[in-house]
């Protein structure tokens, strides 16, 4: 199981800014190791962010997103006590969800 994501959220008036740092190798499937064998692709394909049950951002990713991906986004609304959760799924079918509570 992958390492946890680091999520930070800041509320400014009517909008909430969220920063996420995921932990993932994001292998493209094009790189070779020292012996010349191709390292198989393993990257995040889908990301979903929710505020409580409301989807606030969805994304489909290819292999060209950097290793240990960083993502910053904003949405309107979000009150103290709301839970912001981020979920990713990778090419191996692995997935991880982390969440924080807005203050």
């Amino acid at each position: 199981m992958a390492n946890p994501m680091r999520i930070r959220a800041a509320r400014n008036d009517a909008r909430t800014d969220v920063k996420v740092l995921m932990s993932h190798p994001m292998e493209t499937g094009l790189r070779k190791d020292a012996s010349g064998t191709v390292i198989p692709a393993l990257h995040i394909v889908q990301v979903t962010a929710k505020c409580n049950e409301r989807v606030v951002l969805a994304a489909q990713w290819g292999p060209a997103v950097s290793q240990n991906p960083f993502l910053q986004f904003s949405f309107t609304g979000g009150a103290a006590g709301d839970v912001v959760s981020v979920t990713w799924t990778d090419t191996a079918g692995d997935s991880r969800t982390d969440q924080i509570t807005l203050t």
Partner: protein
Amino acid sequence: MRMHRRSFIAFVSSAATAAAASALWPLRALADWVRPVEAFKAKALEDALAALGGPGQPSDAIVFHSPEIAENGAVVPVGIQSSIPGTEQIAILVEENPTPLAAVFYFPEGAEPTVNTRVKVSKTSRLVVAVKAQGKLHLASRQTKVTLGGCGG
């Protein structure tokens, strides 16, 4: 419970309509966020844009930040902010990458059409942002010079 034939038919048909209406909505939302498989497979920028609904028109309403010179192509920060009304989707493409499409972001109701992330750029290339609003594709692009490739050796 005894039910007359007529009221039974009315009951069944109204239940069916309600079920159909409620089933439609998540389906529609899902269809909007389905992975554009062809666009991710495309090996040329034009093909990827076409698969996204392009070719698209250049627009001034997109604020797009990326470094002019990136020392490390494996981590190139990009920031996008769209002020086009009705922005539904933002795609990031790197022209010279083996497959240009890097990521597609979807903005449901109440999401701000702004996103920051980091992408890999294999060599000096044009970075293109494609914003989809009300079914139309709007483009912005910037050149990024890479001194160290993003795809390792």
